[in-house]
Every structure is written in C-alpha cells, then in structure tokens.
C-alpha cells in the first residue's frame, strides 16, 4: 500500500513569493489499482508525483510505501516521464536493461528479461535500434518497459501520453491496460484528459489549483471492464461514462464550490 498523508508542498517562486503547490493531499494506492490524478495544468499533479517518486521532499505530511517512509528515489518506484529520458548512446535493449544493470544482474539474464519486456510492449525486433530511430509512441513503450524491468512496487506516470497524437495515444492506453492486467502493478497516472482518466482509472482524483488540492474522488470500473471485454465502444457509449464526463468537466472548469473541498464525492 502506498499511503500519502496530508502532504503539503511550498515552493519559493523566483520573485520570492511562496507558491502553495500542494495542500494536504491524502491518497491511498492499493494493490492492483490505477489511481489517476486529473486536473488543469498547474494544480500540483507533478508535484505530488515527484514527491512520491522521492525527487521532492515534502514541506509537511508523509508518504509511505508498504510502511517504509519515502524520502528518496528508488527502484521500488518505477517512473515514466512525459518527455522520454532514454539514453541516446544505448540501444533500446540496453535502455530497458539499465535498472537491472544498476542492480548488478548478469548481462545474459538482463538481456533475456529486457527482451521479454520488449515483447510485452510490442517492440520485439527493435532491441538493437537506437532511441532516436523510434517514434514518440515507441519511445514511451520503451520507457514503460524500462520502468517495469526492476519489478517496482508501483508505476508512476506523469502525463506519459501527453505529447502523442490522439491515435497513438489510444493505442498506448490500451497497451497500458494490458500491461496492468498482465503484471498487476499499481499505477499512479497523471493526465489532464478527462476521457483518459475515466478510461484508465480504478480511482480518479480531481485536483484544483492555488493551492493544489484533491477536491473529489471517483471509484470506477471501466478499466476492469475493458481488461475483460476489450470493447472500447461499449465503454464509451455507456451512459455512466458520459455522465461522469460531464460531472468531472464541471468540476475541472468551474471555480469550484469551496464547501466541497477535500470531501469525497459518492460514486
């Protein structure tokens, strides 16, 4: 269980003012769940993810993973960035195997494992390509495979498909559901697309800016349904989907009603 408790983050802006980027966020990510943080840009989504990843200390509050306090980056939390961070001097295979190399896994074993992961993300045949020879979508697949290689307890993804065209994006969403169904990894996923949030999340938390806080929470089952039935149409045409879309859209766009702050909304 990943447990974020009352996490607050203050930055100092360049002009010396204090930026309240995250305000008392509380969040649990259980086994086998996909928690999606949704919100307009600037509402503290990356801040929350960076804190969970251990890139950023909290001003206040705590984060624990299976009881262990999180205070630095580590291989138990795999991160997929929006901008790919593959090493241009390494082949696709060696990029995927990087974490295993850091862990001291022998070269043959890590090659085997990396090839397995490349197959899972649909990139067998590209093991010896250079990253710059791949398209944006393919590079994000490599990024996912690389993050999975060390068998982390949770996958943290900061708008991983945000820079992709919408067709590629849909393919990647389906791929991610496959990966999730296959590996059972918990996932913390950031997006500013309502549709993406509804499609991928077992839980969606909506965030609002200034100060960045979680203003609503929805528990969903579209992603489980998709993993079983693999029918996108059925999900998109589900009236619940449209209803939730409108409800969340209103939440995100309207300057929200302060009385609901922090409160959970019923499903």
């Amino acid at each position, binding site marked *: 269980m990943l447990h974020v408790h009352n996490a607050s983050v203050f930055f100092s802006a360049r002009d010396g003012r204090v930026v309240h980027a995250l305000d008392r966020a509380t969040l649990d990510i259980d086994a086998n769940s996909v928690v999606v943080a949704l919100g307009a840009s600037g509402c503290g989504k990356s801040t929350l993810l960076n804190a969970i*990843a251990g890139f950023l200390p909290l001003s206040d509050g705590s984060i624990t993973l299976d009881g262990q306090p999180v205070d630095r980056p*580590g291989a138990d939390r795999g*991160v997929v*960035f929006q901008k790919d*961070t593959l090493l*241009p001097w390494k082949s696709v295979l060696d990029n995927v195997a*990087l*974490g295993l190399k850091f862990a001291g896994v022998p070269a043959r074993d890590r090659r085997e494992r990396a090839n397995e992961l490349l197959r899972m993300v649909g990139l067998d045949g590209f093991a010896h390509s250079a990253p*710059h020879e791949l398209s944006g979508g393919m590079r994000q697949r490599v990024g996912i495979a690389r993050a999975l290689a*060390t068998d982390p307890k949770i996958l943290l993804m900061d708008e991983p498909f945000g820079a992709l065209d919408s067709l590629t994006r849909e393919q990647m969403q389906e791929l991610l559901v496959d990966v999730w169904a296959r590996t059972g990894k918990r996932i913390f996923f950031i997006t500013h697309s309502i549709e993406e949030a509804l499609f991928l999340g077992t839980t969606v938390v909506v965030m609002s800016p200034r100060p960045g806080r979680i203003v609503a929470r929805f528990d969903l089952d579209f992603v489980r349904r998709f993993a079983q039935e693999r029918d996108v149409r059925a999900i998109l045409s589900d009236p619940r989907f449209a209803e939730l879309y409108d409800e969340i859209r209103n939440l995100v766009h309207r300057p929200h009603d302060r009385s609901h702050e922090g409160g959970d909304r019923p499903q």
Partner: protein
Amino acid sequence: MTDLASRGAPHAAPTAAHPKRVRLHPFGLDGAPTLLISLTTGAALIGLWFLVSWLRLVPPLFLPGPEEVLTQFLAILDDGYAGATLGEHVSASLFRISTAALLAASFGIPLGLAMGLNRWVKGVFDTPIEFYWPLPPLAYLPLMIIWLGIGELSKIVLLTLAMFAPICLSAQAGVRSLPIERVNAALSLGATRWQLFLDIVLPSALPEILTGLRIGIGVGWSTLVAAELIAATRGIGFMIMSASHFLAADVVFVGIGVIAAWAFAFSYGMRLLERALVPWKGKS
C-alpha cells in the same frame, strides 16, 4: 470513378518514374554541399600563386614560387635544416603538443567534471582558472623559462596550461547541460552515485568534452609555434625562425605548410574520434 482513373493514368505514367521532387524553400546554408566550391577556391588560389610568381609581380625573395617551395621541401626532407632533419623538427613539435594534450586532458577532464558536480571544488579552482585563462600564454612564457629553464619542460608546461582551461571549462559545461530528468530517471532505476556518474554524467558530458579537446588542440598549435619561435633548438617553429634570419622565405613556406598539414590531421582525427565516441550527437 473508373473513368477518372483511366483518364488520369496516361498523364501520370511518364512522370511516375521521374516525378518532380520538391522541398520547402531553404534559408541559409541548410546543409548544401560546399566541398566542390572549397576545392575550386583552393585550386584557384594555388593558380594565382603560380601566376604571380611566374609574372614576377612580387620579388621571389618575398614570395617564392610553388615549384621553389616544393624543391626546398624536398631538399629539407633530404638534408634537414638548421642542424636537424625535417623528421626531427616535426617529431619535436609533435612530442610537445601530444604530451601537453595528454596532460591537459588527464587533469582538465576530471577537474572540470568535479567542478561541475561539487561546490567546493568549483569554488576553490574557479579563481585561479578564471584569472590565468584569459592571459595570452606568451605573456607568461618568460616566467616559465625563468622557473623551468629553456628545455622541454617549460614548453610542455606552457602548452599544458594553454590547453587545460578550454578542456576543463567544457567538461564543466558538459555536466551543467545534463538534464535533471535524466538524473531522476537513473535514480529511480536504482543507480548509486557512482553508477550515476559512470553511466549518466560521463557519457552526457562527452560531446562537450570532445569539443573542448578540439578547441584545446587548436590553442595548443598556436601556442606551440609561438613558443618554438622564441625558445627552442628543434621544432617546426624554430625552423621557421632560423629561416627568417636568412630571409629564406621558401623555408618559411615549407614550415607553414607542414604545420598546416599536421594541424589539419589533428582536427580531422578529432572529428573521427567524435564520430566514433558520440554518434548520437545532435540526434536526441
């Protein structure tokens, strides 16, 4: 539909094999090939040289003709000049510049990386480096001679100092250019600090380091020849200097040609090294 297709076909057929290919209007150079133009310019300059010497527009004492220079080159190759063979002059110069380059790189790269990574190292070494590196090396050559004598040591130290600064500064710049996301990605893959240095920092800084080496070697050549003009008994610079005492312009030309050839070989070698070590440069 079929009508349209069949009507289009006869027109499309002849152009299909050789379609008129177009591209966006370029601006600036846009990678247009310049080799042929450069070679033609070179040939034209040599032709002009021939013409000027053949027409005796300038006295041969000042501007020897190409064939005179070539004859002189062959003569020096056979008999040497100023007490040493051409090979000895060249290898004296090459020994100085290579030794100095090796020394400058083996101090400059680690120190530059350390300065990029550590506040204390940066703070301590910034002052002396920023102080000495804008100085023209010839300004402190007399000091080197007073301290270290007229032998090889003073010249090698001078060259090392001249090449050290650009190498060190570019290694620092290499560390600075490292994107934080790359570091964070490696840390969340479980990299230790040492692994982070070897697998991320070093290769990320490599392109800048190689650029620094190239600049350093360029600085090295100009410093080398100047130092040999002033204080040496061997070396291409020395050869040029002795020739000037006898107004032997043809020997000066030979010396310049030899330096040009070697300097070109060095920079070409660096380019090959770059292609071998950082083939990804500019591609990500």
